[in-house]
């Protein structure tokens, strides 16, 4: 042994050092860690929140990774996370199966998204559109930019006689969901042919005028590079990519361009929102009333378990959630996310107060498991299946 060490001093030193480093890493002071995953849309904002939140509360660590809304909901169902992000509420079947296993899943809106309709017509920097016209463009009924339905909305604008290239998302996405949700609200045709979908295929009428891009970045790149094209992206991508957005006619009859204020307005008029403990499926704030409301907007939610197992984690989670819907909102606008209006903040705070530890859940479940296994082993010949 001694001979071995003497012969391999370098090697032994390296091994010792790395072992020490490893042990140090393991024995780092234990903080409460909150783990979350899900929607990619709010990820930059959540990262910003985490940076500031952890400075204030240095005994809480928050980890969030954007893996997609669908993955977030799945993580909630398998309980591999403490919270999840999702652009769409859980479906009734998902919500029920989670409710049966873990108790209610609370939906807390943490920020909002707006979808900008971006276009690329050389020489034209502002365009008015209505939901019906937009649906007709995406259904292939309107083929040229100088179609009378478009030019009647834009008096004085010299629209070219060029084919419209229509751009959509190639991947399944929350952006497409909100966009199609809006079109379903304003156009019967759209509702009956395509409806509200995370992804859809172009109708035959569009033919080779239809283009698809991966992610918001992909769609904005295609629109940037293709003259006479139109597409839809998250508001932040339209601003950061210097793309021109169309003004959309809202329910009050006004043409409104997307901006942080006009998107935020969509939530302030949201009425009849369900209780946080209920299933939020079907909640939609597209085409909301209000004079200066931008009509294509949505919430993005944090999903959490009402019943927590670990009291320390429960307290940390409540602190984190309270912080993001109040203080966290101050960071939203500089990252191009709309602020939550006061009514939604209050709703969120009420939801946070509902989170609690399930008392003695461990003792009860332990006893019941012991009882069940005893019972099944000795009376039913070990038929565990029956109790699962």
């Amino acid at each position, binding site marked *: 042994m001694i001979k071995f060490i003497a012969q391999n001093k370098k090697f032994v030193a390296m091994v010792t050092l*790395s072992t020490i480093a*490893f042990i140090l*890493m*393991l024995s*780092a*002071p*234990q*903080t409460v*860690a909150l*783990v979350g*995953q899900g929607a*990619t849309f709010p*990820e*930059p904002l959540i*990262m*910003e929140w*985490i*940076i*500031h939140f*952890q400075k204030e509360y240095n005994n809480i*660590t*928050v*980890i*969030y*990774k*954007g*893996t997609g809304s669908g993955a977030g909901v799945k993580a909630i169902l*398998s309980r*591999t996370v403490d919270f999840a992000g999702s652009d769409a509420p859980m479906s009734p079947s998902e919500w029920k199966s989670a409710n049966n296993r873990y108790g209610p899943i609370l939906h807390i809106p943490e920020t909002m998204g707006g979808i900008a309709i971006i276009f690329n017509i050389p020489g034209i920097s502002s365009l008015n559109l209505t939901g019906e016209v937009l649906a007709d463009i995406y259904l292939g009924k309107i083929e040229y930019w100088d179609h009378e339905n478009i030019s009647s909305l834009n008096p004085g604008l010299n629209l070219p006689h060029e084919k419209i290239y229509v751009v959509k998302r190639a991947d399944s996405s929350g952006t497409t969901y909100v966009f199609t949700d809006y079109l379903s609200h304003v156009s019967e045709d759209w509702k009956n042919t395509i409806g509200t979908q995370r992804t859809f295929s172009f109708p035959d009428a569009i033919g080779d005028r239809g283009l698809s891009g991966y*992610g*918001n*970045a992909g769609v904005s790149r295609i629109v940037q590079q293709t003259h006479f094209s139109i597409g839809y992206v*998250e508001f*932040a*991508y339209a*601003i*950061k*990519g210097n793309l021109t957005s169309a003004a959309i006619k809202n329910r009050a009859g006004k043409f409104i361009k997307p901006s942080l204020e006009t998107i935020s307005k969509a939530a302030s008029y949201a009425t009849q929102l369900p209780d946080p403990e209920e299933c939020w499926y079907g909640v939609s704030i597209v085409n909301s009333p209000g004079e200066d409301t931008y009509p294509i907007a949505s919430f993005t939610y944090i999903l959490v378990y009402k019943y927590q197992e670990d009291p320390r984690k429960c307290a940390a989670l409540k602190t984190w959630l309270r912080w993001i819907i109040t203080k966290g909102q101050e*960071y939203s606008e*500089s*990252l*191009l996310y709309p602020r939550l209006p006061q009514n939604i903040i209050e709703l969120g705070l009420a939801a946070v107060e509902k989170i609690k530890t399930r008392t003695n859940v461990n003792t009860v479940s332990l006893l019941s498991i012991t009882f069940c296994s005893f019972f099944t082993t000795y009376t039913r010949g070990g038929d565990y299946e029956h109790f699962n």
Partner: protein
Amino acid sequence: MKRLRNLIDKSYTALAACSFFILVLPLLHIIGSIIINGLKRFDLELITSPPKSLLSAGGGILHAIVGTAMVVFVAMIISLPIGFLTGIYLAEFARGKLAQIIRALITTIAGIPSIIVGVFAYTIIVVVYGFSVLAGGFALGFISIPYVVRSTEEALKAVPIEIKEAGFSLGIPRWKVILFIDVGYAKSRIIAGFLLALARVIGETAPLIVTILGGINIPSGLFSPANAIPLVIYQYALSPFKAWHDIAWSAALLLLIIALVMNLGVRYYLKIKAIYY
């Protein structure tokens, strides 16, 4: 006749040169654009600072560098002993059907798409312990095992029989001959194989997404989630923010440098050991 032969000869040379350029051009383009775009933010802050607020310029990827280091460290702890011993078995003991089956299995493991290995790690580790360095290390370790096995086996097979015989003639038991004489002789090649396996897994993205999750914190231990350089590149490149795009380019440059240094380092190491790989 001679002229025709010359012509054919020349045209073949030209064809070969052409295909070489077709092969090399995209590579040069990739390396070139990574260097040009990556140099913008390739500073000390990149490797010494965790992410900072998007509102203040700056911030780095220290969390991802530490995460990658920890995950790869765990991967090596898992794959080196298993791969090394399997390699010895295949080179020295394996005969007949069983050996063939084991070799086929190892080739199969090498052919499994890495995301599937990630999902495997997810089902047996993440579901129990949560997203963690351990799960990521397990996935990467599993991916690198075939490389370690193969390089160990090849290295041991290249040991001249005379050297073994010299050992046996002194009455040294077989296991000692293998462990001290064979492995001693093939040491540099085995180490080179380890390093190449490491270089292979350091840029893996897919299995890490489902195992270590991510986040902006420096992992506090084996059971905490972590981030990794390829994951940061993936996330930042798709964001709308220019500052993040720059960091993604620089992180790509860093990854490129790590891979180059490791590959060239191995070549140099083998050269000074006077073994051509």
